[in-house]
């Protein structure tokens, strides 16, 4: 029932688009609770986006067209990325077209456009943010890839859905190597999504900010797209994590009932992840920017360690 | 042990004398007497050549004997004496290796030369048993002299006594070279001497002395 797979694919993208800000809202809510502030509404991100969409756009005089198209490209790539990640089912038609390496490449492309756009206007903060973003990226990207490699070594494929499927099918529930990689992945996820301890989404303190610094010159619809893309990114990473480490409950074929179940399950998993994220952010303190590479280098080494452990098992 | 005919004994005696002369050259410091010794060498050479010529009856040896006489006994010494007088170089300065040392090395060289000549002597006609060895010895000794002397003039004398050694070798081993060659060689030596004469004056007017220490500017080490 091929058309069902197509339906599955379609639904998945829609869900990602719709639910991404929700996840963001949930994380912020949890954080507020943990820091016993009065929490913003769960829908706050949506309101933000709607507000931005009703404003006039202001562009710097020397902003080039690269600056203007960047938001669309970034948003588009994030949507496309969502299509590659098994969120509900593993029988995605898109699987054959792009594997995990392509996915990481896609993230990298988004990052490059973001940084270039940030450098375009040529303000102090923009370039500073771009540099820091790339600095985080050149360590986070290989780490993510390593994490995926470990999984693909176990499953003899680099296609994310198949990885997830095989992992779910495997008898052994907990792979020791996956423990290392899980930690590494968590660290990357924090770094990539501009979370404490690497970055603080809620600050505009120039010495510390990374992601916000790049958005400074954006306004209105561009800004809205950027925010939304950021939310999507978080959502995607969360789903990658789920696919790699708790792959159970994905619909192995596209029939509606299991799809429905999968949606519910996904919501549950995401809720937990969001809470966990908030917890980490509350407990840990923001690092100095110079320390960020060391943080990520640790993550990279952890991933490599995971790989070694895996190979050790194979060798034996 | 058959008795060696007289003339051969004479040739050998001359050979011995030749060796003696080159030794005395090695020890001699006065340039004028060096030249005289050279002339005596030439004389010995002539006599030896004539002896061999008389014995073998080769006409061209008589010729080369006369040539030798003219060139080495008369012309060259005369030329050198003239140069000495014109350039006022009578004494050689202290040689680079002192006389006894030079003599010692000389003795070693003679031993070596004789050893070297052994295989050839086996083949040589009985005329010239040890004269080959002596010829080699003379050549090497004059070589040594050229090394140790530091005046241009004495080097030239060394060079010429080397030529003498060569001639003696040629004469004693092979009763001289073919005539063409003999003439050519003689011509070469003659020209060489003339060139040298020119040289001496040029050097003299450049450095107003014939001391070879002036001729050490072209070198690699600095």
């Amino acid at each position, binding site marked *: 029932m091929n058309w069902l797979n197509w339906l599955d694919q379609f639904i998945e993208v829609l869900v990602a688009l719709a639910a991404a800000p929700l996840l963001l809202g949930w994380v912020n809510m949890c954080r507020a609770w943990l820091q016993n502030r009065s929490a913003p509404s769960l829908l706050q991100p949506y309101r933000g986006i709607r507000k931005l969409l009703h404003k006039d756009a202001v562009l710097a005089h020397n902003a080039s067209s690269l600056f203007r198209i960047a938001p669309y490209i970034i948003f588009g790539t994030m949507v496309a990325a969502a299509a590659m990640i098994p969120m509900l089912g593993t029988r995605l038609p898109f699987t054959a077209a792009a594997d995990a390496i392509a996915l990481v490449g896609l993230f990298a492309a988004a990052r490059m456009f973001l940084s270039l756009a940030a450098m375009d206007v040529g303000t102090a903060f923009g370039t500073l943010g771009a540099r820091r973003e790339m600095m985080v990226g050149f360590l986070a990207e290989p780490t993510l890839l390593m994490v995926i490699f470990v999984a693909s070594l176990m499953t003899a494929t680099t296609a994310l859905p198949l990885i997830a499927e095989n992992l779910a099918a495997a008898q052994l529930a907990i792979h020791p190597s996956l423990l290392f990689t899980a930690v590494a992945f968590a660290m990357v996820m924090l770094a990539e999504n501009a979370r404490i301890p690497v970055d603080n989404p809620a600050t505009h303190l120039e010495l510390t900010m990374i992601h916000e610094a790049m958005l400074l010159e954006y306004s209105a619809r561009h800004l809205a797209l950027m925010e939304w893309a950021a939310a999507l990114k978080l959502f995607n990473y969360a789903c990658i994590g789920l696919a790699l480490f708790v792959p159970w409950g994905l619909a192995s074929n596209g029939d509606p009932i299991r799809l429905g179940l999968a949606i519910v399950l996904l919501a549950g998993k995401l809720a937990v992840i969001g809470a966990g994220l908030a917890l980490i952010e509350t407990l840990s303190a923001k690092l100095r920017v110079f320390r960020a590479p060391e943080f990520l280098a640790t993550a990279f080494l952890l991933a490599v360690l995971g790989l070694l452990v895996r190979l050790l098992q194979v060798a034996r | 042990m058959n008795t060696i005919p007289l003339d051969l004994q004479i040739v050998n005696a001359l050979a011995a004398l030749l060796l003696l002369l080159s030794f005395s050259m090695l020890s001699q410091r006065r340039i004028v007497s060096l030249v005289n010794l050279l002339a005596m060498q030439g004389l010995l050479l002539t006599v030896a050549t004539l002896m061999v010529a008389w014995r073998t009856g080769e006409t061209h040896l008589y010729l080369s004997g006369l040539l030798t006489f003219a060139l080495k006994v008369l012309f060259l010494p005369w030329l050198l004496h003239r140069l000495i007088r014109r350039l006022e170089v009578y004494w050689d300065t202290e040689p680079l290796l002192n006389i006894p040392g030079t003599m010692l090395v000389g003795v070693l060289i003679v031993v070596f030369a004789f050893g*070297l000549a052994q*295989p*050839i002597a086996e*083949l*040589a006609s009985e005329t010239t048993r040890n004269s080959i060895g002596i*010829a*080699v010895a003379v*050549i090497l000794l004059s*070589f040594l002299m*050229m090394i140790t002397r530091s005046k*241009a003039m004495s*080097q030239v004398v060394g*060079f010429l006594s*080397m*030529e003498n050694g*060569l001639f003696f*070798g*040629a004469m004693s*081993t*092979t009763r001289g*070279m*073919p005539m*063409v*060659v003999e003439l*050519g*060689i003689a*011509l*070469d030596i003659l*020209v*060489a001497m003339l*060139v*040298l004469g*020119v*040289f001496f004056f*040029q*050097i003299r007017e*450049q*450095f107003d002395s014939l001391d070879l220490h*002036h*001729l*050490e*500017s*072209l070198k*690699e080490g600095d």
Partner: protein
Amino acid sequence: MEFLLLLGTPLAGAIWLGFFGAKRRAPDVNVGLSLITFIAACALTARVIEHGDVLVGREQFFIDPFNVFLVTLTAFVGLTTSLFSRPYMRIERDHGKLSSRQLKLYHSMYQLFMATMLIALTTNNLGLMWVAMEAATLSTVLLVTLYRTPAALEAGWKYFILCGVGIAQALFGTILLYFAAEKVLGNSGVDALLWTHLNQVKAQLEPSVLSLAFVFLLVGYGTKVGLAPLHNWLPDAHAEGPTPISAVLSGLLLNVAIYAVVRCKILVEGSLGSTLPSNMLMGFGLLSVVLASLFLWRQRDIKRLFAYSSIEHMGIVTFAFGMGGPVANFAALLHMTVHSLTKSAIFFTVGHAVQKSGSQQMDDIRGLVTTNPTIGWGLMLGSLAILGMPPFGVFASEFLILTTAMQQQPWATPILLLSLAVAFAAIFGRVQPMVFGETQGKRLPHPPALLPVFAHLALVLMLGLYIPPYLAEWYRAAARLIGGE
């Protein structure tokens, strides 16, 4: 007939120029004589190609595959050099470095030198060969000291004494050879020194005598080849003489000397049947290459630089002859050819470069291409060629030599290659700044004659890409001859 022309022209010319060498047309006469010589050489070559070897003058002179191409080469380079020296000497006189008397001397000696070399090449009589070699030395001594500067005198003196002594050893070697030959050929005297006869009976010659003879001959003629450690006269003489003489010295005289060595080697090897001569040649060759490449490293004077490079290449040739065998001999002959062509071309450009900058110090010579592109490119291409850069012919011969070395003397190959690399760094590092960069040189009073340069380089280039069949045949025949068949 050609023979008389070949040897007579330069002799007569030497005498004539000795009297009228200072006339305004004297350079042109010089060129004309060289041209006649060259034509004679070509005619002779043609004859040899048609009828094979030639023996003339009561067997005193002969042409066989080995010396015929050397004769042609000598005559050719002699011609081009005389062409080059026309403007060069004019400029020297305009710069007031030479009087007309010296010019007279120069022209007459130049022809005499050519004559002696041709005799040494063509004579069949080893004694005459010695005489000619000595004469060549004498005629060039006066040319080396032409400028009468202290340095020139010193160089001349060293040249005279060292080569004189060396040559004397060669004479003794010849005597010993004669001695041994007599035992076989009987006491007929005259033809006991004829190479052709010796070559027929070489197997019967007494080995012990011949080995001694070879040592003396090697040391004697080796001094003129410039084999280390007998080479010490060579850089001085090259650096202090007038440039055309440097060109013919390293382009031709060295060849002739090596020719003499090889002639003797053929006989001795035939008699000994041992590898002794080969080993000696290889030893000398290798030593020369290594030492020369190291000396190159610290040169400041441009002519000394290329003099040492000549030593290096003579070392390569000697090594190749030492290895022997058809390929190595072939390569060695080819290397002699390309080396003399290239090196003389280099000296031509160097001469003009020195005249422009008024100094032989390489630090004073700068930016040749900017003021005088032809000189600059000539020097650059020439140096690259002599350094064994393809597609020039030097690479072809070095390729053959190196590959043969890998085959026969593997241990020697790395040494050779390292020395070549060092030489490359040394020479090229010096040449580049002279050719490129800013300049302060002045124009020359007379237009330089650079036709010879590019003629030579073109030939070398051709030999690198394509060796005409008859030439190759020639080399092969010579190689066989040297191989002793």
